[in-house]
């Protein structure tokens, strides 16, 4: 009998194994839903797949009679816009602050401890402050995402900069590089793959902050919709919305992987994904 760590599945069975948990959860849900609906046809907790399909069709492919919008797509667009803007600002900040702070000893001494403390402030605890300062509009939601994600990214970039082998920096100086040139030509390209990885890891937090701010005060968005229909126990809307958010997060994660492979080809050479 081989040791468990040496049992490696071949390619086709591996794909089958990957699909199995997804199939299993759908089957378990279908059975559970069937049992509950059999006992009470008006049960709202576990709607059948056809009920869910109808709800999705109504929200995604029929104009809302009051507003003339396709609610599902409007929600998606609003949420995606908030996420993309929030992440873009966070990324810009973490590069502009993280690289100098990680690279220059004086800035590291000045801002290192401050950044460490700042990134420990629970973002949701300051959400009321954001609402008071920035109002209930788009700004406060984007600021919450930035507040929640940028400090983590910045610290991570600073750490990645500090982890670049000392030899590289000395070598660059013997090639006549100035501090600025080293940041642009040596440091930034080398932390880029790590930055993509950190962005992927912070996607979960990003969605958390988005949905939290949409749930509390908003007029649209995926999180807003979920918390709105919760009042009517509309599981037939909540469940597909959760699945859709998960799919969007997965696609963003995958897009970041592709972007990393394109932007830092050297890093992915011969590296198993």
């Amino acid at each position, binding site marked *: 009998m081989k040791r468990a760590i040496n049992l490696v599945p071949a390619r086709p069975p591996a794909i089958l194994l990957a699909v199995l948990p997804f199939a299993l959860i759908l089957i378990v849900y279908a059975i559970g839903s069937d049992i509950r609906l059999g006992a009470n046809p008006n049960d709202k907790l576990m709607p059948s797949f056809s009920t869910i399909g109808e709800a999705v069709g109504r929200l995604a492919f029929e104009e809302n009679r009051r507003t003339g919008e396709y609610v599902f797509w409007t929600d998606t667009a609003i949420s995606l816009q908030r996420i993309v803007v929030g992440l873009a600002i966070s990324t810009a900040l973490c590069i502009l602050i993280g690289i100098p702070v990680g690279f220059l000893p004086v800035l590291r001494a000045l801002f290192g401890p401050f950044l460490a403390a700042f990134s420990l402030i629970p973002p949701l605890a300051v959400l009321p402050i954001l609402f008071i300062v920035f109002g209930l509009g788009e700004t406060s939601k984007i600021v919450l995402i930035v507040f929640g994600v940028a400090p983590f990214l910045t610290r991570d970039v600073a750490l990645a900069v500090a982890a670049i*082998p*000392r*030899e*590289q920096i*000395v*070598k*660059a*100086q*013997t*090639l*006549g*590089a*100035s501090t*600025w*040139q080293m940041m*642009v*030509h*040596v440091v930034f*390209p*080398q932390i*880029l793959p790590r930055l993509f990885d950190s962005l992927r890891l912070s996607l979960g937090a990003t969605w958390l902050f988005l949905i939290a701010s949409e749930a509390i005060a908003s007029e649209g968005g995926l999180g807003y919709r979920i918390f709105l229909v919760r009042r009517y126990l509309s599981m037939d809307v909540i469940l597909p919305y959760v699945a859709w958010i998960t799919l969007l997060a997965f696609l963003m994660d995958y897009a970041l992987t592709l972007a990393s492979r394109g932007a*830092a*080809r*050297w*890093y992915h*050479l*011969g590296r198993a994904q």
Partner: protein
Amino acid sequence: MTEIAIKGLAKSYGDTAILENVNAHLADHEFCVVLGPSGAGKTTLLRILLSQEAATRGEVLIDGVPIDPEPQPDRGVVFQRYSVFPHKSVLANVMLGPQLRAAPLLGRLFGARRRAIRERAEALLQEVGLGEHLAKFPAQLSGGMQQRLAIAQALIMEPKVLLLDEPFGALDQSTKKAMHRLILDLWRKNRMTIVMVTHDIGEAFTLATRILMVDKARRDPHAPTAYGSTITEDIRLDPDKKPALHVVDESADESHTMTAIFARYRADAGDCVVDEHPNFQAAG
């Protein structure tokens, strides 16, 4: 002309003395190999020459002028590892230095000036045997090829002094031989001074015109860190009287050279070899 003078150099970290009273004068076009046991401070000496570290006392002069306190292009370097930039192609690694010098803001040239640097880089890479690998990334090169790249990258800056910190320490024997040949060729052609740190005594005698041994001259058994290392041996070798390098065939591939080196050691082993092809006999 490049003369290096090391005067009364000492380095200590707190109470731990690493180097003390290091004095040496290196003539123009010297190939100086610094030998010493592990932890003796030979790398520390190299780092001081590089201005990666500052001496506690004493000074280093190149042509009578104290060296800059920061690493500068007048002193090129090749480390044992991490000498090349992993995110740049072979060609881009070599083209980097001249572009940084010529374009302070962008670090990148365009048009005719870029073409001129490109031609120089390609010629240099051809010389170190990487002419076929211009577009590859360092991760796609073998250890010996990465060191060739690092040497080319340093040489394009035309440094007065090339500092080598155990550059061939991680290479196999056949690759090492080829690298010895290469570095001697480049040393003769470019008329520069080389200071190389190694713990391989054979390598030192093969390459050097000057061997410095760095070791502790005084020891206090009750306070092992009280005294630092100094220069305990200092010999000069005439390169023209040395036997030629046993590089079998420059165009030979690595495995061929390996076989040749093996054959030489096999011959030297003589009677120590008690049996040949024991497995073949058992099978036959």
